[in-house]
């Protein structure tokens, strides 16, 4: 089992190295196949580890393995250590399983790009980083994986490095994540100081003394989780990250990265449980993010950005669940979300692919008949997103809402936010669906999909995604459509893994690692489910009247529209609060400190040395006899002094 876990971890890393070293000797397709194969190996290894773990008794499902001592400092010793327990195996399965499908999809999507090999090397590195994060056996290795995930997301978001917005987005993601990394590192320092170790079993079993210390540690960890999972107030990088290739967005949003924050909270639950206020803060942040992201999603016109905001909103649900102590519900939603969000992104990728890189929804329309497969895939994904039974999202989201009801007045407040979120989800998801797929095909769509001969004439042009246009029959190559189909099936059946109150294998499986703090009653479950479904349907109905049937016009309130299109002015506020003062300070320091003091003093020093040199040089006459006289005279003086002093 340990061997399987190591294979699962290292396989994508090996592939990344092989692709990097092989470079031109490897064909472009070969790189894609190699990356897919390596992640598939990871998935198989994860399954093997899972089956092995099933054979153990539930309370003995914890195996750690240290490869070598990685960092030794004084009395502290941190090994390259992985842990195989129900939680890490669960994450391994989700990451490698969904990751495999996404990498396979990329083979079709990225075909024709100039730098496919670099792309697949990064993808493999990304999967490796995420696996390292979820398999880490101590918090230091977890932080290493955490940082590597940030790095690979930076590389992939900025993959099209000749496009300035992509570079800016990559930098933004990196900086935002670095804030989280920093707070997390500080929390770990404090943890080392308090417990003398970072190994999970030591850290989690040892009570930490001092309420301020435990609160600070939990806050630091929460900061990291919030940054990585794009929750308010560190969320601004996520929508911009849409500048990357669509499969990258799918990977970041579905299988890796943004779910890392949820994983961290569930993994370090024993620490968070000692700081209940921080846990409530996490739930609150999640609830605020649900509503804010849902509202912003209503006015987005970029198809990928709508899905990006829906990710923020859905991660908000997971944060809410984790913050309430409903860990299995959070993990369950993480899994179903991975399915339907990957499905939505990849379906959007099919649309973008078919329309030669166009992402603006205003130019789309009427794609239902032209791309029927894509339409049904998006429909399934959207229904699941809106939490309509029997799709996966229904089971996981409603159990979170039910758990909120079991947490006093605060929980009820969160519950209301979650319910509002459900309505918004139905509204924005189907707004996107109706705009893109309903109605008559727009001129732009006709040009691209109906007049093939016309499109042929344009072949060879670089499209929006930087790769050459290529004609394909149907809705995309097999590697793309097949993976979308698999995810659609998973989205339909994935939810039946757990049915609250009746059938709870996932809760039982995770029980040894993360025992839930709340237990929703049957009534709470029923009330939440029925209300959530009704609100979701309500959202869909409103979307239908506004964007499908177009019987009512969408309400236009100028100021609200303005606020939403500026995403509540978060970017502007950060710009004003941090960027401007920093630039101002730097310019001031440059003008008043660096130029006069640093550069000035160096210039003076240079002048002084030059003058001294010129003056000493004058002593060097070149006349040998003068030197001899000088030597003789000084010797005479020395001799006289010597004699006289004695």
């Amino acid at each position: 089992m340990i061997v399987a876990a190591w294979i699962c971890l290292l396989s994508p890393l090996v592939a990344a190295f092989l692709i990097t070293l092989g470079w031109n000797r490897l064909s472009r397709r070969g790189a894609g196949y190699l990356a897919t194969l390596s992640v598939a190996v990871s998935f198989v290894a994860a399954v093997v580890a899972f089956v092995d773990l099933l054979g153990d008794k539930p309370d003995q499902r914890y195996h750690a393995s240290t490869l070598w001592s990685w960092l030794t400092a004084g009395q502290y010793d941190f090994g390259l250590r992985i842990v195989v327990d129900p939680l890490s195996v669960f994450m391994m399965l989700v990451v490698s399983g969904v990751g495999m499908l996404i990498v396979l999809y990329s083979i079709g999507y990225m075909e024709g790009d100039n730098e496919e090999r670099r792309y697949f090397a990064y993808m493999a590195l990304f999967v490796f980083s995420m696996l390292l994060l979820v398999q880490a056996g101590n918090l230091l290795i977890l932080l290493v994986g955490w940082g590597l995930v940030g790095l690979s997301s930076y590389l992939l978001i900025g993959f099209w490095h000749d496009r300035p917005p992509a570079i800016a987005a990559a930098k933004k993601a990196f900086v935002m994540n670095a804030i989280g990394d920093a707070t997390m590192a500080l929390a770990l320092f404090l943890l080392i100081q308090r417990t003398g170790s970072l190994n999970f079993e030591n850290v989690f079993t040892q009570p930490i003394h001092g309420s301020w210390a435990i609160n600070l540690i939990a806050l630091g960890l929460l900061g990291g989780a919030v940054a990585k999972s794009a929750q308010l107030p560190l969320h601004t990088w996520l929508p911009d990250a849409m500048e990357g290739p669509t499969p990258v967005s799918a990977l970041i949003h579905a299988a890796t990265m943004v779910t890392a924050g949820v994983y961290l909270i569930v993994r370090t639950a024993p620490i968070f449980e000692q700081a209940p206020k921080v846990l409530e803060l996490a739930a609150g942040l999640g609830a605020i993010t649900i509503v804010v992201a849902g509202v912003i999603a209503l006015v987005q016109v970029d198809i990928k950005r709508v899905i990006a905001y829906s990710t923020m909103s859905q991660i908000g649900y997971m944060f809410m669940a984790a913050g309430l102590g409903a860990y299995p519900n959070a993990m369950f939603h993480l899994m179903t979300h991975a399915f339907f969000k990957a499905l939505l992104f990849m379906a959007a990728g099919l649309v973008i692919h078919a329309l030669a890189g166009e992402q603006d929804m205003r130019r789309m329309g009427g794609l239902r008949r032209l791309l029927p497969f894509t339409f049904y895939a998006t429909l399934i994904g959207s229904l699941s997103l809106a939490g309509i039974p029997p799709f996966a999202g229904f089971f996981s989201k409603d159990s979170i809402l039910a758990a909120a009801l079991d947490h006093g007045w605060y929980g009820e407040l969160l519950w209301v936010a979650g319910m509002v979120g459900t309505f918004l989800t139905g509204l924005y998801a189907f707004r996107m669906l109706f705009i893109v797929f309903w109605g008559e095909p727009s001129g732009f769509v006709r040009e691209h999909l109906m007049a093939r001969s016309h499109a042929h004439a344009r072949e060879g042009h670089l499209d929006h995604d930087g790769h050459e246009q290529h004609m394909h029959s149907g809705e995309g190559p097999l590697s793309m459509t097949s993976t979308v189909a698999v995810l659609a099936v998973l989205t339909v059946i994935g939810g039946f893994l757990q049915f609250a109150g009746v059938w709870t294998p996932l809760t039982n499986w995770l029980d040894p690692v993360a025992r839930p703090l709340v237990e929703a009653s049957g009534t709470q479950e029923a009330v939440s489910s029925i209300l959530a479904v009704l609100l979701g349907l309500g959202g869909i109905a409103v979307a239908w009247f506004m964007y499908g049937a177009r019987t009512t016009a969408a309400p236009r309130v100028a100021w609200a529209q303005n606020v939403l299109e500026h995403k509540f002015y978060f970017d502007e506020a950060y710009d004003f609060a941090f960027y401007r003062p920093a630039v101002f300070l730097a310019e001031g320091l440059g003008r008043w400190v660096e130029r006069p003091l640093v550069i000035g003093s160096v210039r003076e020093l240079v002048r002084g040395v030059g003058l001294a040199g010129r003056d000493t040089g004058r002593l060097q006459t070149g006349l040998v006899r003068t030197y001899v006289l000088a030597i003789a005279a000084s010797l005479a003086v020395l001799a006289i002094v010597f004699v006289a002093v004695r």
Partner: protein
Amino acid sequence: MKGPDVVWYLCVAAFLFCTGALGVLIRRSPLIVLLSLEIMLNGANLALIAFSRHYAQGDGQIFALTVMAVAASEVVVGLGLIVAIARRKLDLDVDKLSTLRG
């Protein structure tokens, strides 16, 4: 074996040294300067050997041998330089050979 007192030897040595030093200081031909240097070295050698005999120790003699070896090599280098200067048809005058000034 009795000879003159060590003071006499030292007087001769000092006389030789001063003659050499004077030669180095006032003569302008590099050949003569080298020659005067040799005289200075020999004066020093004489003093070394005189002390060696006075204290009945071999150190001074060994040192004198070393000085001779150094003097020989120095002459080789010096004469080589002088020949090189003469070949380039430059004036053999140490006051005019002052291109190494700062």
